[in-house]
């Protein structure tokens, strides 16, 4: 382990706490992410949104799968679950249904949530499971070394498509919207204020809420595609992002080094799985229906 030397700047301003440190497990810092990785920025936006939302953080759960973004749960100062590859959404479903008063955020990557976990993603959206899904899309499997993802743009190189990807990628906002998601937005890790606002808004909404965040992977995606560093990718987002709120999600697919349509595409008030379940059973079973208690279906002394 190397020790971090005091920088002249920190010496000058003294040690002040990072504004979102109460939302992080500071005893786990430094984190594992590469320099110029976009995940940290997105975590900061999420933490800021939690602060602004003013919700009881004891009641907000965070669930991640596996991968670089899968490590987010481990750094948030919430009840945190680092689960199996692809299964964060069904794990979150179990939490939500058995202690309905809790809020649940699923925070994971593109490969985790829509590659190995794609089936859970579409079904949770279809049944309007009341979870906020934050997906960081870096176009590649980062943690395992840059393999092709279901989001890798056509023509982009990955370690398992060394001659360029020829598989069409998912258009994730369209996938989520067509399965019925109540809230669908896309931003990049450059759009920190808009992204924070989207998180803030989505925390207050209900139902299946999906936010895709395009973020740089400089170590693998940028290097394999000769795109420079994370800084160059951020510059690319700056020059090529196009904000089109309410855009038809059929038209927001992402090509290799093509423009990235950002914005809020869907924001609807839809009854959740639990809303429908309660309404249905109350109608059919009347006073015989006993809903799961908000604090959970547990039996205690």
């Amino acid at each position, binding site marked *: 382990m190397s020790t971090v030397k005091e920088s002249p700047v920190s010496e000058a301003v003294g040690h002040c706490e990072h504004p979102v440190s109460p939302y992080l497990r500071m005893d786990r810092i430094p984190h594992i992410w590469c320099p110029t990785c976009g995940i940290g920025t997105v975590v900061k936006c999420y933490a800021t949104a939690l602060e602004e939302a003013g919700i009881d953080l*004891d009641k907000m759960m965070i669930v991640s799968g596996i991968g670089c973004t899968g490590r987010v749960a481990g750094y948030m100062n919430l009840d945190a679950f680092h689960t199996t590859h692809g299964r964060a959404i*069904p794990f979150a479903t179990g939490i939500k249904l058995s202690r309905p008063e809790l809020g649940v955020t699923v925070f994971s990557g593109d490969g985790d949530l829509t590659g190995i976990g794609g089936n859970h993603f579409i079904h949770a959206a279809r049944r309007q499971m009341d979870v906020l899904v934050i997906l960081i899309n870096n176009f590649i499997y980062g943690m395992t070394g840059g393999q092709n993802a279901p989001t890798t743009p056509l023509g982009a190189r990955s370690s398992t498509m060394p001659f360029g990807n020829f598989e069409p990628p998912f258009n994730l906002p369209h996938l989520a919207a067509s399965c019925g998601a109540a809230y669908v937005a896309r931003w990049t890790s450059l759009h920190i204020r808009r992204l924070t606002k989207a998180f803030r808004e989505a925390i207050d909404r209900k139902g299946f809420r999906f936010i895709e965040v395009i973020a740089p992977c400089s170590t693998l995606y940028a290097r394999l595609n000769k795109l420079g560093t994370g800084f160059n990718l951020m510059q690319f987002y700056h020059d090529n992002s196009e904000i089109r709120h309410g855009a038809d999600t059929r038209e927001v697919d992402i090509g290799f080094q093509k423009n990235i349509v950002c914005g809020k595409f869907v924001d609807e008030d839809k009854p959740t799985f639990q809303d429908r379940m309660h309404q249905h059973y109350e109608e059919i079973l009347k006073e015989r229906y006993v809903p799961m208690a908000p604090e959970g279906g547990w039996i205690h002394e």
Partner: protein
Amino acid sequence: MKTDPAGVLTGVHYLDGDFACGEGAMAAGCRFVGGYPITPSTEVVERISRRFPMMGGVFIQMEDELASMAAIVGASWTGTKSLTVTSGPGFSLMMENIGLAAMMETPCVVVNVQRGGPSTGLPTMVGQADMMQARWGSHGDYELITLCPQSPQEAFDLMIDAFNLSELYRVPVMFMMDECVGHMTEKVVIPEADEIEIVPRKLTDKPPGEFQPYVADERLVPEFARAGDGYRFHTTGLTHDERGYPEMSVKAQEKHVGRLVEKIRANADQIVRFEEDDTDGADVVLVTYGITARVAQMGRELAQEQGVKVGMIRLIVVWPFPEKRISELAGKIKAFIVPEINYGQIVLEVERCAAGRAPAILVSHGGGGVHEPEAIAEAIVRAAK
């Protein structure tokens, strides 16, 4: 403590094993079930889905068995007793998250109504060929507990034990039924709620800040904090330290995984359970479980008519295995006879425990039906000579 009366259908019933299993789960206090349809197990969740809305329980039919298993692990972290139900192919799909439950030390119960395999095999017909999968199916080292009922009444009774054991040791418990027990209909007596002892989730009395999720007690089992109670804990499928933080080291692996294994091995005497009959002075001892125990009883009687002294061990808890008792008997008898509806699984464990002092003879059946009692009798008589 006594169970919640809302889940207890007190009375004398005529139920099949699947329904009885579902009733057992509800009586044990289970209030979350995630499942996916698969023959011959589906009746368990059909029963539960009909009764749950009247007792504050939630059943959800997930999109597959991977999701079902992940959902019950998540649900259990809220303190809610959780169950999933499946058969062979679904059991295979659940394996990864059974390992997660073992690694995170999550109490839950997995029912496998066994059918003939491998692959799609014999969907509507009996098998007992998943017994080793129950023990070893997920990758890596871990220990868990496996029970095996032989009747609808036991499907009810042992379900309560299954939930209690999962709470006591914080392990996933495998409930290995078979198609015959699942689909046979018999008398099932369900007692009053105040006669049903259940083990509630034992919560830590430490305040947040002092609590660490993986500090084990003298039984090697850690204390539990529920999700949403302000503990802000972290848990992971990665090898972790007492704080639940990932730690990639030989030392952490030995400490954590060593304890996962040892918490069952060191407590095996309290967990092991079997029925023993006429083993004193026996020449041959049958070791059986599930539906085969009932067929073997007939084979045993046929052999007794021919003057053979034959005892019987019926496994109720299969894992951990009653190795001490099998080892003791091995020095006293001529042979063990192990009939099972597979090509040799539990017989290997008997052989291991007998360590060459008595042969363990398999009477196999490939699946799709039960043994002819005569085949078992013949093996007993031959071994006694």
